[in-house]
């Protein structure tokens, strides 16, 4: 499959005087339709990286190519047409006075006629299950509902790429699960390419591939199972430790040897049951 995003030798400094770059010579590609997770500590540079890809930061060195278009000050609006981005704080990206106004915001910016906007707003709200909230003001919504409205705003524009910049980190567990399920469904339906920046193990597990960013550098790139196999060390990569890894450690501390590698909960359950019945 073709690469929809191609980042080569990207470096960025917040200020010219900064000794250490926020992004340091980062190169990676994303295939069309792929789900890529970016993980790392808070402050590691992963959000900065996502912003650079969307042309929200004027990076000094390197190239970013999105859908065959090289990102320059001239092409930045063309590039942004292809990308929808959801940020961490649900309140600070809600522009409209009501839910429907907010969903329409992106369409208004693209000077879509009102006649076309009305059905698109409605369809987008249907898609995320927020149609009954169309007239509500943001104050009346939970964090999870606001993030779904943000998703509707992106669905209305129909970009190829969805970037989630810790979009679930301020939600409660229920809101997080709902949001993740919704993204998974939309991705199937719309054949979206997804980049998600996250600390959440379930969100990272949805990815095809994980990039680990530390101190502005790309330090690791592997499939989830391979990354998760690092067990307790994952905390230092900015990820939760999966439950199976914790259990494995606890068992090993008690003298029980567990097969190497990462096990899903089902695999772990199966293995334990086999071992226990093996008398």
């Amino acid at each position, binding site marked *: 499959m073709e690469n929809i995003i191609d980042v080569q030798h990207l470096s960025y400094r917040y200020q010219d005087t900064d000794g250490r770059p926020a992004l340091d010579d980062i190169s990676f590609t994303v295939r069309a339709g792929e789900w890529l997770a970016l993980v790392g500590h808070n402050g590691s540079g992963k959000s900065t990286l996502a*912003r650079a890809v*969307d042309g*929200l930061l004027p990076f000094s060195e390197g190239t970013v190519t999105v859908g065959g278009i090289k990102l320059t000050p001239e092409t930045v*609006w063309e590039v*942004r*047409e292809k*990308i929808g*981005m959801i*940020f961490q*704080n649900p*309140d*600070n*990206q*809600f*522009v*409209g*006075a*009501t839910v*429907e*106004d907010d969903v*329409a*915001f*992106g*369409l*208004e*910016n*693209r*000077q*879509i*006629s*009102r006649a076309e*906007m*009305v059905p698109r*707003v409605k369809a987008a709200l249907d898609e995320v299950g927020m149609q009954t909230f169309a007239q509500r*003001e*943001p*104050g009346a919504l939970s964090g999870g509902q606001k993030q779904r409205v943000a998703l509707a*705003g992106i669905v209305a*524009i129909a970009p190829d790429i969805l970037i989630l910049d810790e979009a679930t980190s301020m939600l409660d567990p229920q809101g997080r699960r709902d949001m993740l399920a919704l993204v998974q469904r939309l991705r199937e339906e719309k054949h979206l390419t997804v980049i998600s920046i996250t600390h959440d193990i379930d969100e990272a597990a949805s990815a095809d591939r994980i990039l680990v960013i530390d101190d502005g550098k790309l330090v690791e790139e592997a499939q989830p199972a391979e990354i998760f196999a690092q067990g307790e060390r994952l905390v230092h990569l900015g990820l939760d430790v999966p439950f199976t890894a914790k259990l494995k450690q606890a068992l090993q501390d008690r003298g029980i040897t567990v097969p190497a590698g990462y096990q899903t909960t089902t695999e772990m359950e199966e293995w334990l049951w086999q071992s226990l019945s093996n008398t």
Partner: protein
Amino acid sequence: MSNFIFGRYLPLNSIVHRLDPRSKLLLSFCYLIVVFLANSWLSYAILIGFTLAAILSSKISLGFFLKGLRPMLWLIAFTVVVQLLFSPAGGHVYFHWTILNITQAGLVNSGVIFIRFLLIIMMSTLLTLSTQPLDIATGLSSLMKPLRWVRIPVDTLAMMLAIALRFVPTLMDEATKIMNAQRARGVDFGEGGLIKQAKSFIPLMVPLFMSAFNRAEDLSTAMEARGYRDSEHRSQYRILTWQRRDTMTWIVFLMVVATMLATRRW
């Protein structure tokens, strides 16, 4: 704060609520002029009748308006008393002491001032009670559209106003939260002398400004990511539609004005 009715929206379903905000804004403005044109008791009676009819058809209880008057009471009383004591001589003199006179003309004048105050406050309260702030903003920017020709960035101003309105409740929540946090750290808001009170606001205002700046930065990034370039090249989702009820309202209003003008002293 809670009994300060002026500037608060009361969601009800009445013809007044459903009027086009442009209609209501323009009408309130014209009403302001009309009130100053009235001069005979009969013309005032007609305007009072119109105002009461407008209030009744808004389904908002009169009590709300009277409660809303309370904070303005001192201003009204002061103006009326000044009018009463310092008006020029004319007619019967009821009371005289150095430069203070209570004359018949003074009584009439203060009565007139009182009624004008009342009418204008009632009507503008009706406007804000029956119209969402956002609709007022949309209506205002729509009415100001012609100012584009003199290079006033009407759309940008309208966008700023809409965002400000959108964030008022968010920042009010934030302020409550910060006040609570500082109370828990031993701050007494609204207690002690003036200097102590002023000082107690620093732990509230600094965090509130920091939060507002951070939100503004986040918001501008999010807006840019969503394709916002400038306010002039955008289409509009929220549109206002002038309906038959607006035309009807204006016809009634103009008829009232005509009758009022006919009964005024020329």
